[in-house]
Each structure stands twice: as C-alpha cells, then as structure tokens.
C-alpha cells in the first residue's frame, strides 16, 4: 500500500509535466483508436457479407455485364437455391458529394435473399408494386430526411438522364454490422428504358447474387457455375460475397496499409514523449533514489517505483483516451458518413489501445529504471539534479 501511495504522490509531484504527458497520451490513444476504426470501417462491407451467398460477375472485370438469361442456367446448377439480380447504378443525388450507392435489383426476390434488411410487410409490397418505387436504408433516409412517399431525383452517369423514384420502403438493419446507407430500385424500370433508348444494352446485368443450400459447398458450386459459361462471350467469375467485397479492399491495400503503419507511428511518437518525461523525472530524483538505497531499499524497489509511475501515467492517459474515443468516433462517423457506412469502435480496438498504452509506459521506464537502479549511492547523493 505504501508503495502505491508513493507512486501516486510521485506522479502528481510535477503537476504540469504529468498533465502535459497525460494530454499527449490521450491524444495519441484517441488518434490510434480512430485510425484503427477507419481501417475497420473499410472492412465493414466484407464483415457484413453472408457466407451462404455467392456473387457472379463477368470474369473480365466488374464493368462488363452478363446476359440476364444466365440466371436460369445458374438456377439449374445443383445446390443453388435462388438467384437475384443486382446492378450498380452510379447515379448522383443533387451533388456528387452526396455520394451513396444505388443498385437496380430484381424487386421480386431481392429482399428474400437479404434477410438482414428488415422492413414492414406493407412497405415491401408497396415497393414491389410500384415500378418507380425505391427502398432505402434507415441511415440514408435519416441523412437526407426522406419519408415514405417522397420523390427522389437521381441523375444517372452510366444510365444518362434524370430518374425519379418514389420512396416506398425504408429498411432497418438486423444488427450493427449491416450497412443501411444504400438505395435499391427496380431493374425492370432501367431495362425498359434501355429497350427504348439503347437496345444493345438491354437484358444485361452486372452481378447475380446466388443463395446456396449448403454454405460449406460454396467452392464447388462456384466452380460449377463458372464451368457453365466457359468460352462464352461473357465468362463468369463466381465467388463468395465476402471474397467479392475483399476484392475491392485489396485494390486499396496500400492505402490501408499506410493508415495501419501511421497509427503505430502515433504510438511511437508518444512513446518518445513519455520516455522523455520518465528520463527527466528519474534524473531529477537521482538523489532521492540514492537516499532510498542508503536507507536499505534494494535496486529492485527503485526500478519498481519508476515502472509503477510510468505505468500509472500511461494507464491514466490510455483510460481517458479510450473514454474519449467513443464520442469522437461518433462525430467522425457523422461527418464521414458518405465514405464509411459503418463507423464503430470495436472491442478489439479498445483492447489494442490499452495494450499500446501499457507498452508505452513499460518501454518508457526501461532505460531510466535501469540507470537509477544501478547508480552508486555515493554518486547519487553527490548528484545535483
């Protein structure tokens, strides 16, 4: 008990220095947490992906479509339960900075394959009945203040012209990993328009989403699907939804890697600051440590004093940092909602923050404690701080 009391008194002896160090620690831990959350947010799409769904796309790349009649042939592959259509629309709502994903889907069964989107049955049937109907996620509806029945104009970049949709359904997320910042509408509506304007582009689809009976057989089923279309005009590439999402992330791998590295650089910098504080503290108190040793305390006790002080500093800073991360993440999440659909501090991040704080304290105390523990009593007493 005496030991803890001594450490506690020591920490707050140089109030200004300790508080500056703690502020530095708090900032570093918050920054680390936010950067880790940014990385997590990038993976949000793949975390939300279902294991029992496959995505088939043109094997050349995602921008090439496939004939929509492939659907029946995919459905005939053993193990396939149902198939739906999903096509990237790439429209702009008022201004490009309002970016959110829009997809043209098969209104009949799309939401059967996505049970994680929850909506009232009457809204779903209203969405199905209206060819110009649209369904949007709760987050998106809240962001733009849309209500059921509102008209939403979208300017097409791939399908040129201004499209107007009527909001018929708003869906909620089943759990926190589900992304609800997107919009779905009828693929038929787009296809009809193409029939009149660009007949060459009609009856084409960007991706098929496939539900399988047995999630453990996805690899075989993917192979069987791709085999159906080998050497055709549009060869397919079928993979699990998760791997499909990871494909996007891997294209940005270097940026994500950079953010990861940077988040550890923050910790490194703060380590320099804390190590500095501990080095100065120990140097100032050399006489004291020599006195303690003269009184009969061993070198281990002196080292433990310095370690205890450094760890206490870093834990206070780390703890405050963790507490501050949550409200700040909320603010960042609101500001950057166009970029990150899900922005949530995970438990792993909190644990890593605390681990980093402890590591900073521990490493910062290494050199000073080693030095102070080894000092000769005579030299220490003679030393002028």
């Amino acid at each position, binding site marked *: 008990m005496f030991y803890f009391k001594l450490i506690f008194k020591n920490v707050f002896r140089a109030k200004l220095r300790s508080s500056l160090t703690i502020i530095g620690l708090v900032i570093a831990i918050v920054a680390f947490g936010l950067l880790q959350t940014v990385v997590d947010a990038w993976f949000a799409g793949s975390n939300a992906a279902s294991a029992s769904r496959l995505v088939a796309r043109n094997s050349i790349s995602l921008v090439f479509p496939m004939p929509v009649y492939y659907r029946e042939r995919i459905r005939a592959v053993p193990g396939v339960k149902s198939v739906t259509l999903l096509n990237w629309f790439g429209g702009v709502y008022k201004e490009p900075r309002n970016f959110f994903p829009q997809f043209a889907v098969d209104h009949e069964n799309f939401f059967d394959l996505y049970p994680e989107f929850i909506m009232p049955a009457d809204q779903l049937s209203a969405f199905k009945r209206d060819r110009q109907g649209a369904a949007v996620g709760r987050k998106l509806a809240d962001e733009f203040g849309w209500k059921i029945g509102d008209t939403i104009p979208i300017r097409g*970049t791939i399908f040129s012209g201004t499209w107007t949709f009527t909001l018929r359904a708003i869906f909620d997320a089943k759990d926190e990993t589900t992304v609800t910042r997107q919009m779905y509408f009828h693929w038929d509506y787009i296809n009809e328009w193409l029939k009149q304007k660009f007949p060459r582009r009609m009856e084409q689809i960007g991706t098929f989403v496939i539900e399988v009976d047995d999630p453990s057989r996805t690899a075989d089923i993917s192979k069987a699907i791709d085999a159906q279309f080998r050497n055709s005009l549009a060869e397919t590439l079928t993979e699990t939804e998760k791997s499909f999402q990871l494909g996007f992330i891997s294209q940005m791998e270097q940026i994500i890697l950079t953010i990861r590295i940077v988040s550890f650089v923050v910790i490194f910098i703060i380590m320099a600051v804390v190590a500095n504080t501990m080095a100065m503290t120990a140097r100032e108190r050399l006489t004291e440590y020599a006195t303690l040793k003269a009184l009969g305390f061993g070198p281990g006790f002196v080292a433990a004093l310095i370690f205890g002080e450094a760890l206490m500093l870093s834990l206070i800073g780390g703890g405050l940092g963790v507490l501050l991360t949550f409200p700040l993440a909320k603010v960042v999440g609101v500001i950057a909602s166009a970029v990150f659909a899900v922005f949530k501090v995970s438990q792993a991040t909190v644990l890593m923050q605390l681990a980093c704080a402890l590591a900073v304290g521990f490493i910062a105390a290494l050199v000073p404690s080693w030095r102070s523990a080894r000092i000769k009593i005579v030299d220490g007493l003679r030393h002028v701080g």
Partner: protein
Amino acid sequence: MKIPFNYIFRNLWTRKLTTLLTAGGMALVAFVFAAVLMLDAGLNRTMVGTGSVDNVVFIRKGAETEIQSGITRDQAALVESQPQVARGADGNAMASKESLVLISLTKTGQDKGSNIVTRGVSPMAQVLRPQVKIVQGRMFQPGSSEIVVGKNIHEEFDGVAIGQKLRFAQREWLVVGTFDAGKSAFDSEVWGDVEQLMQAFRRVNYSSVIVKMTSVDSFDALVKAVQDDIRIALDGKRERLFYEDQSRALSTFISFLGIFLSVIFSVGAMIGAAITMYSSVAMRTGEIGTLRALGFRQPSILVAFLIESLLLGLVGGIAGLACAAFLQSITISTMNFQSFSQLAFSFLLTFKIVLQTLLFSVVMGFVGGFLPAVKAARMKIVDSLRAA
C-alpha cells in the same frame, strides 16, 4: 545584451538523451507531415502530367469518367471535322478515338485481381501524348491482337512480360512492348488497337475522343460548337483538367488524412517540446538567476530559451525531411475511387514542401517553447538565486 549562441547550443548538447528524444519526436512529426504533402504532390504530378494543355477530351454528357461514357462513330467523326482541330502533315485530324475497358490483372504477390485500364487507341494517340515512349520491345501493330503495357503494370503485375499472352474477351493478346509515360497515369494502363479491342469486346461505341487544338485559345469555340450541335452534344474538357478531376476524391482523401494526422501529431510533439523546455527551465533556475544578476535582461532570457526550442524544432524538421527524401523511390499503387481502376504514383519532394515542413517544425518548437521561456524570463532574481 544578448546571450551567446554557444550557451544555448551547449545546453542542448549537455542533455543529449532528452534532446534526442524530443527532436526525434519532432522529426517523426515532420516526416509524416512531409510524407503526406509529398504523396499529394506526387499524385498531382501524375495527373497533371497525364494531360496536355492543348488537348481536349470529349465524353458523353453527364458522364464523369471515360468508363461511363459512350460516343457513337458518327459523333466522333463530327468532332474530328471541327475547324479548331489541328491537322497533321498528311491532312488527317489529330484526334484519337479511344475505347476504355477495365480488365482484372493480378498483382505480383496478391491473389485477388485489380482493375486495370485497357485503352484502345487510334494511331494518332502517340502524337497526342508525346510523353509516352516505348522503352522495351515495340509498339503494337494496328489491326493485330497485340498490346503494350505501361511501366507500372510491367513492374507490379504478373503475366505481362514481353512475349507473354493475356487472355480476355475470347482472344489471346500478345504483349509486344513496354512504355514509359513519364510518371503519368498512362503508366498504369494497357494499350491496344481500338478497333481490335472494340471488336473483341463487341462494342460499337467509343468511350472518348481526344483531339489536339490548333491553338490553346480555341478551346471555348470548340467546346461550344460541339455542345451546340444537336447531332454531337458531348461534354468537352481540357485534358489536364479532366485528369485532375479524375483524382480529386483521392487527392481530397490524402489531404484530409494529412491534416488530421499533422494536427494530432504536432500537438503531441509540442507537448513533448514543452515538457523538455519546462524541465530545462526548472533545472537551470540558479543559472537563470545568475545570468540575470550578471546583467542579462528579461528579453534576452526569453529569446535564449525560445531559440533553444526553435533549434530543437529545426533539428527535428531537418531529420524528418532527410528521412522523407528517401520515400521518393517508393511508388504507391492503389485504386482511384472515381475511375475504379489502379493508379500508381510516387512521393515527390518539392522546394515548397521543404519550406513548409521546416516552417511547420519551427512553429512547433516555438509554440512548445513559448510558455517555458516566459516562465524563465519572469523569474525573480533573488528567488531563483536562492533556489539554487
């Protein structure tokens, strides 16, 4: 009376560990600050270098990228025939009708594909883009299934060495050459004959038409003529601006990240500097008293401590810059969100960035050292002499 510079310098020298740690922290901050600016500068150079001043890109109205666009043969022919379009010695319009597709290639060491721009070009393309030079092998033969690949593709992707074949659109495409596009975005592209690529991909429309103007000033007239003609009605943009717009989101992202990091890091570094200077002041209380008793004035003390802190910042800044300079050999290849394809760019250290970083680190030193210096200057002679 001024305090000799030697005194200030030797103060830092005496406490080497603390000086090193503080300056090291500042160096890291300066490093990150410079690195982000360099990345943005590198991206900017890549995109600006991609466009030429006297070229104009035409794409479909409403489209934002070449990949979203479509231009019929009739429209393309009408654009070519505009009087503002320059003509070559043979009388042909200096225009390239291009078709863009994305193909998926695998980066060396990765198992997932990345989207690569594959550009079908007309024979005139090389005249319009003088920065593109074949460095290995030869240019593709028009009318054949041959392709040439950009420098970054050659370096970072599998299966694109000269003599190897890529298979897409039911054909095998022989790689016959590698080109260097002077660090522009074309370095991350694959080029082939536009007519061959369009046939293979069963396309009837071009993606874009690039023309060279007779003079830089004829831009407005050309764009107006094309927009007003209801048979054409395409959007025209200066090539340089067009490519800058293509990377705007990426550039904004990098700058945003840069500002966020710099602010957080610099606060940490300033706190570090403040701690160092406060302790330096506290330890030298007796010394300060002596200096004052010798006749040095308060302002001299203030300046001496400020200079000490500025020196710390400067040392950190120089060290950070020196490390950042090594980054120039690194090339980053990542997905450009807007064009949905890979784009490679490298760090670029400009004179402006050197100045900005040094200024930034000196300011960090100043802010961190200001309060401690004030504290030192305001000490009472008697008290400080007694403290020692």
